[in-house]
């Protein structure tokens, strides 16, 4: 990488790209384990079961949101409104719990989910049926939803005093040793893995992301698929809205501010291509876990939190570079193929 070895650079990079580009997931998994062990050497407390349990609980919401964000990105879209949607659904769930304390928890959770779903449907309708660019639509709805949080709450906090004990306790209650949020995340991972791999809905999203025109040719109803993709993303944000508010036992206007970027970062690190058509569930999950490990581990080895975001950025950039090297642009094939070896030989000798 120094000036002295310029000839080494491209083969090394090519080799790196070769090794790194194809099965991303095992590599990322290895990287996470390595990182955990490295940190464990410096701070043995990090390797305890309790710490791992914390790590999982902390990453659960990020994983859940990365799942649906991944589906959205696979269709060549993006959902910037997830964090605002989460805040709005969470705030409404908290307000419901405050004003109607007699409401059973299941109704409140369903309400949060439903609100998120409706907000997501709105995005999906604008993107799918009016063919508006996803980045613009969700940028707009991001502000609208965040604004509505202010309007509904009047800028005031809803604190744990205003919530029932049941409301607050649910996310961190343990079932067979793990917290509810972890179980929910695990359930979501399995469900979305099946959705992405074994349903026509899931496969159609890949088709749309690969080639929207060709998807139309094979009869995929793109608008309807997009509508429900963003709806899923919204519903997931709604559910996470309740979980977030209940877990931190407070609802305020700035909940999850900027969290949409963390979610997107998790997807990108997990090998989901922003250009669409590429990405899978395991990648999104590992990307989210990776970010959670960085965020949880670095403070334990006394690395300044300022470094965390820089480190995250470096990881994202490396992921993107690896992606770009993996997909070399093809030239048009005009010459008959028997010209190829000869032409290539000439090219090789002159360059």
């Amino acid at each position, binding site marked *: 990488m120094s000036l002295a070895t310029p000839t080494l650079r491209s083969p090394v990079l090519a080799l790196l790209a070769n090794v790194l580009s194809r099965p991303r997931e095992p590599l990322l998994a290895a990287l996470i384990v390595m990182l955990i062990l490295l940190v464990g050497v410096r701070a043995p407390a990090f390797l305890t079961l309790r710490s791992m349990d914390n790590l999982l609980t902390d990453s659960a919401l990020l994983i859940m949101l990365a799942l649906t964000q991944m589906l959205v990105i696979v269709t060549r879209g993006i959902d910037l409104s997830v964090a605002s949607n989460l805040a709005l659904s969470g705030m409404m769930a908290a307000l419901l719990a405050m004003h109607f304390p007699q409401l059973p928890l299941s109704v409140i959770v369903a309400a949060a989910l439903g609100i998120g779903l409706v907000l997501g449907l709105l995005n999906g309708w604008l993107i799918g049926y009016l063919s508006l660019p996803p980045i613009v639509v969700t940028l707009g709805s991001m502000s609208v939803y965040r604004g509505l949080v202010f309007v509904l709450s009047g800028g005031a906090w809803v604190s744990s005093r205003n919530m029932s004990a049941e409301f607050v306790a649910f996310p961190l209650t343990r079932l067979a040793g793990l917290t509810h949020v972890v179980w929910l995340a695990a359930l979501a991972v399995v469900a979305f893995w*099946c959705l992405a*791999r*074994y*349903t*026509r809905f899931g*496969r*159609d999203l*890949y*088709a749309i992301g*690969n*080639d929207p*025109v*060709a*998807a*139309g*040719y*094979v*009869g*995929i109803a793109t608008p309807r698929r997009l509508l429900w993709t963003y709806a899923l993303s919204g519903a997931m944000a709604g559910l996470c809205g309740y979980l977030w508010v209940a877990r931190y036992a407070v609802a305020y206007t700035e909940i999850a501010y900027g969290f949409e970027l963390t979610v997107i970062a998790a997807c990108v690190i997990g090998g989901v291509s922003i250009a669409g*058509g*590429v990405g899978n569930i395991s990648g999104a999950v590992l990307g989210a876990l990776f970010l959670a490990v960085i965020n949880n581990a670095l403070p334990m080895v006394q690395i300044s939190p300022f470094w965390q975001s820089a480190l995250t950025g470096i990881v994202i950039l490396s992921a993107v570079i690896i992606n770009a090297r993996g997909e070399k642009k093809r*030239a*048009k*094939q*005009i*010459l*008959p*193929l*028997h*010209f*190829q070896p*000869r*032409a*290539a030989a*000439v*090219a090789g000798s*002159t*360059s």
Partner: protein
Amino acid sequence: MSSTVFPAAGSFFAPPSASPPAAAATTAAAMTSSAREVLPVLELAGIGKRFQGVVALNDVGFAVRPGEVMALLGENGAGKSTLVKILTGIYQPDDGIITLAGKPVSFATPQAAMQAGVTAVHQETVMFDELTVAENICMGRQPLCGFPPRIDWRRMEAEAEQLFARLEVSLPVRARVKDLSVAQRHFVEIARALSQQAQVVIMDEPTAALSQREIRELYRIIGQLRAAGTAVIFISHKFDEIFAVADRYTVLRDGRFIAAGALADISEPELVALMVGRDVGQVFPQHEQVPGEVVLQVENFCHPSEFHEVSFSLRRGEIIGFYGLVGAGRSELMQALFGLTPAAHGIVRLDGKRIRVSSPAEAIAHGIAYVPEDRQHQGVLLSLPIFQNITLPILSTIGLMLCGRRRRRQELAIARRFSEQLELKASHFRQQVAQLSGGNQQKVVLAKWLATNPRVIILDEPTKGIDIGSKAAVHRFISELVAQGLAVILVSSELPEVLGMADRVVVMHQGTVQCVFNRDQATPELLVAAASGSLPPSTMNGAVPCH
């Protein structure tokens, strides 16, 4: 030579199993006759299509019967692709009736056409690159199993394997399509067509990028389709292929039906005459410039996948025409000359001095200008006013020191000079280019490049999609340029334009220079034959070596 219908509107229909076309040659019947042995599976009558007033197809009709291979022939722009798009449900016809298996049908969507059994293998394959071969074949119709229903990957892959076994092609069904060769992609498309029980398979120049062995493989598969009673519409510019696989032909020209018949009854020159079949009726401005010294000399220009060993020279005051089929590599060659394709290499001399052009900026500095084919995307900035478009490439020469009003005045003066020369019709120079007509937009593009004061100007399809009046203005303008001593490279797919304007014509085919004709030697028939690669360069009379 007007639209003489060649052999007496002869049209016959081979029985489904009869692969040698000669067997069918005994029953000659008119197109409209009902005396047929086997009913056609697909019949078109009176198909018309217009795009914003421009007639793309007018009263086109033909029929194909099961187990028959029909060659659809025509020059660039004859309306073949429009017809294919109508048949596959991408466009809706404005007039006419499509009859499939005796029933009138209309395909509102591509999917409707596919479900009805009409599928196409496109020249540029339409596929999902990141997905596997099996999934590409089954996309949208994946087999489901169990409850809740889930995609049965095993069955999908087994079905794909069966299809390839039927085609006798070995392809890994789990491979990603992006890792396949062009030929393999064609096989995937054919397998997809087969999996849908296609009654009619349209192949749009399927051999364009295949090797000889792969082409033979394709012929074999076409034979299988024919044996299975599938009708094949085969579009190709290569006459040897047409005579090798097809039973009948239908010729289109300028969006009209010209002739149809059995290939056994027609020879290659007769087919070419049918395809070309028109006088070069337009009047082109004569330029009696005696070409001067060589300005641009290109030797052994190569690209790994786009063109190979291209050599030619261009003199002062000369127009050199580049003719070829769409996708022959002409635009790619010109882009490389202009420094847009770094992978290209070879010797380029300007005024005898070897130059290296590795970016458009360098090309402009050497006095080479390139007017691209895709006007809207590559040629102009639609949202900027006219005068800013014209002065864009020469901003730095206007003088950065000048600012404000003086600079603007100078820009406007330059814009005015070239606009008057080109008879640009606009209300004022601050008008946005987007508001101009296609012809006037093209004039803006020309003005812009002229402002760079080039020595060599490359025009890539300069009159594509503009009206007759603007065309004449552009032609007149080109000859004025030449009179001023510029050297012009004119890339055009329009025969009359090439024949009428160029001093010499270079014909390209599959990325190589096929032959070079002088103006008095070039005939439409020779050019078409050379462009389709059916004339070996060595046997050509009047062909000049490539230097």
